[in-house]
């Protein structure tokens, strides 16, 4: 990672995030949210998060073959746990334990 780029990225992310959060609080009189945009915002989290997760999980990790890639399998287990429990901690635990278990079995 390039250091000057990283520092710039952190500062820009901070300003951008603040601008989004403070937008209407600071300028409600001058800003209007178009209704179509307001409705679209509901679908930002599922679309963006899925676009981040799927490629990350499908990336070959070098252990296991094709659909039996260890990280993909551990991700699938974690996905089911996330769906049933809705808990961040349980999802994390299920995914990591599955990954460790499979790595240990195949060693």
């Amino acid at each position, binding site marked *: *990672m390039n250091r000057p*780029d*990283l*520092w*710039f*990225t*952190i*500062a820009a*992310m*901070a300003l*951008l*995030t603040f601008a*989004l*959060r*403070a*937008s*209407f*609080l*600071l300028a*409600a009189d001058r800003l209007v*949210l178009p209704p*179509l945009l307001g*409705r*679209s*915002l*509901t*679908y*930002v*989290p*599922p*679309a*963006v*998060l*899925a*676009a*981040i*997760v*799927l*490629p*990350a*999980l*499908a990336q070959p990790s070098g252990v296991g073959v094709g659909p039996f890639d260890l*990280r993909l399998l*551990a*991700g699938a287990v*974690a*996905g089911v746990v*996330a*769906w049933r429990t*809705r*808990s*961040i*901690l349980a*999802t*994390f635990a299920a*995914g*990591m334990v599955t*990954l*460790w278990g499979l*790595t240990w079995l195949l060693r």
Partner: protein
Amino acid sequence: MRVHRPSFLSGLRDVAPMLLGAAPFGLITGASAVAAGMAALEITLMSATVFAGAAQLAAIALLSAGAAVWVVLLTTLMVNLRHVMYSAALAPSLRSESLGARAAMGAVLVDHIYAFASLRFARREPDLVRRDYVLGMGLPMWLTWTCATAAGAFLGAQVPASWQLDFAVPLMFLALLIPSIRNRPGLVAAITGGGLALALGGLPFNLGLVIGALTGIAAGTAAERVAATYSQRRVR
């Protein structure tokens, strides 16, 4: 500026269970940032100034994959766009606060704080000082998040690479993604966004992520419209 203590404490009481959830999330974020090559100081500073878990994890994953800075910023914009919705929803209730107070509340307007604030403001409690209620949630949450990330970064530096802690990043996103799918249009948005990003994974600058996400948002919005017209027809 006097702080109305009961309102501040009321905020603290509401947010306390959330702190228990934010602490391990921060620990994991700090540890996985170090696993991805960031320094402890860098990720701690990022937590203190950006204060947005999902956006930070996305940035960590993208930066360690060598993505361009503008792709990281565009992803931050998309991941955090929902905060505009929160800001717009709370603005009418906070119009009478000073400019500085509104800026301070904007800085801490994360998901859970928005959810509690909209709930409590709707009850129109006469004794609740809204500014102090919001800051009573925001300050402890910010402190917890920043300290937990720092602790995670220092602990994570001791963890050997064989533990594969970098896998925590996609796991965290999975834990955020699944509850965000609340209905069928949401599922359409997720499948379109994820599928397209996967198919376009070979594009430079992680452009597949950007194209997939934007198409997914459009697909979800369109699906909502189709579902609405369909259910109207059925009623007739």
